[in-house]
């Protein structure tokens, strides 16, 4: 064994430069991507008098929560809307998982006859303009008593999110090694047992991704919520935001806009940052096929 340390020769300049270049590009990309978020975040804390200042200032002269107060106290008060949105998002998540997990399992692991046809059928709703589908769906919901009903809205959001969910779960289940399934089968486990004890734990990141996308879709969806819900106390956050931002003849309340954009983004961003690990790996498992 040699105890001496022999320092490395200097790195070739080209390689050093490349390292710095990559770092510089990364930092530039990060700056560009964060700038709009930071700008709107700072702007939302400007005092009312500064919200429509021309020319605009980058930093608020003083921190003020006036814009947020306006948003928070709008009509029924923001918590009513947040509660409704959370309720609908929660039901959407459950519906998406309950439907996409078994479906993804079946499509990934069983020789279902006409499998690809079913799969394409499930994906079909991705290719229809949602705004057009809304009327037939609304008319059907009216007959079923699903209008003015948060569960109905959750069904609507599930319709939007289901194709991607099934696609993702199918790929997640396909990524589970065959040996594990075979071992479970040799052990005599039932299909349901296999799903519960072998597949679901391994496809958990995919499920988290499904849940997150369901949350984001539901949290942000506007027109369906507006058309289905009939009373202010049942409205969701996006409807409130549209209301608080717009005034007579399409005039815009810039301060309320900045605050409400932040309010609408924040839950999504926080949820993403908290669950990022699962989110990205779920996407990766879903995407590699």
């Amino acid at each position, binding site marked *: 064994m*040699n105890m001496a340390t*022999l320092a*490395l020769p200097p*790195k*070739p300049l080209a*390689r050093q430069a490349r390292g710095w270049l990559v770092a510089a590009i990364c930092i530039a990309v990060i700056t560009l991507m964060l700038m709009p978020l930071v700008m709107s975040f700072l702007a939302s804390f400007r005092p009312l008098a500064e919200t429509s200042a021309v020319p605009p200032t980058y930093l608020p002269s003083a921190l003020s929560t006036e814009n947020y107060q306006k948003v928070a106290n709008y009509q029924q008060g923001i918590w009513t809307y947040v509660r409704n949105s959370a309720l609908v998002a929660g039901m959407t998540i459950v519906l998406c998982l309950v439907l996409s997990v078994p479906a993804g399992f079946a499509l990934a692991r069983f020789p279902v006859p006409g499998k690809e046809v079913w799969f394409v059928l499930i994906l079909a709703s991705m290719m229809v303009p949602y705004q057009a589908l809304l009327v037939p769906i609304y008319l059907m919901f009216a007959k079923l008593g699903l209008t003015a009903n948060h569960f109905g809205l959750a069904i609507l959001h599930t319709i939007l999110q289901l194709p991607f969910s099934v696609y993702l779960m199918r790929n997640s289940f396909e990524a589970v090694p065959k040996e594990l399934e075979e071992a479970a089968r040799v052990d005599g486990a039932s299909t349901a047992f296999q799903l519960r004890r072998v597949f679901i734990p391994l496809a958990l990141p995919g499920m988290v991704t499904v849940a997150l996308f369901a949350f984001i879709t539901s949290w942000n969806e506007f027109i369906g919520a507006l058309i289905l819900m009939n009373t202010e106390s049942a409205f969701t956050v996006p409807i409130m935001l549209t209301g608080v931002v717009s005034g007579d003849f399409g005039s815009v309340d810039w301060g309320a806009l900045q605050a409400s954009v932040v309010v609408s983004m924040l839950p999504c961003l926080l949820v993403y940052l908290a669950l990022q690990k699962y989110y990205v790996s779920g996407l990766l498992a879903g995407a590699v096929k």
Partner: protein
Amino acid sequence: MADAQLRLTSLRKSFGAFEAIKGVDLEVRKGEFCALLGPSGCGKSTLLRLIAGLEEPSSGRIEIAGRDVTMQEPSNRQIAMVFQSYALYPHMSVAENIAFSLEAAGVAKATRLARATEVAKLLQLDPLLARRPAELSGGQRQRVAIGRALVRNPQVFLFDEPLSNLDALLRVQMRIELSNLHRDLGATMIYVTHDQVEAMTMANKIVVMNAGEVQQIGGPMDLYENPSNRFVAGFIGNPAINFLPGAAVGVTAYEIGVRPEHIQMVPADGARLSGTVSLVERLGNQTLVHVATPVGMLCVQGAGRLAASVGESVGLAFDADQALVFDESGRRRSG
């Protein structure tokens, strides 16, 4: 030494707090077939990757053909490497795979093809030039990987456990082919393996490694007969050497090692060391007898038709001259 084709000096590599290579010095001469041998995780693959330039060392020097390449790109080191997985480009034909380094060097297409064909002929791959890797057998893929190395005319060939993905029969065959290739080309080869048979049969220099350190460097028989420490003695040789406490056999040494072929079975009565046969392995040309003794299980290697049966009480004897003597730290003591 002036004609060292590869020289490593005080080479170290750490991954965070983990020291994978703890200061390696090594010289490989032109035309040598050098095997890096050791159990998995001993650092042999890392060492190879350092030589290839796929990892950057933490400190030390790497010289190839008299040139300091420590900070050079892999492609500038005049080396070629055959990967364990072969690393063939799945979307390219055999010809494209072999000629890819020429393509990277900007060689004209016609020249590339001619050169690839030439190399393919040498490896009997010429009928397969248009195929994709997925359409080849394991042995054929192996040869394509070698062809890709050959085409670059390197100063040093690097092999990373190239035979581990082949079945037993094919492995033997490829071993012979590689040896022949080495002889025909007279090339310098560095060959990583955990299989001592491969190392012993193919290499003329073996570097035994453990835990990031070189344990011993030498020719195959050197290592077998003259291991410099307990680790090398235990690692080289199949069946493995028997270790006994010196006190048990009346030798004034901490521990001794006796190779199975150096132990004889004698009648139990009066023998200094005796035990009960617990297992007899008959391999045709030889027989391995495992004997449970008070100092542990010992293995005896004898002729094919050696008489032994399970449950039998036997005595064991060996010539003290043939025993290897180790001290507390596992170092070999001569005599």
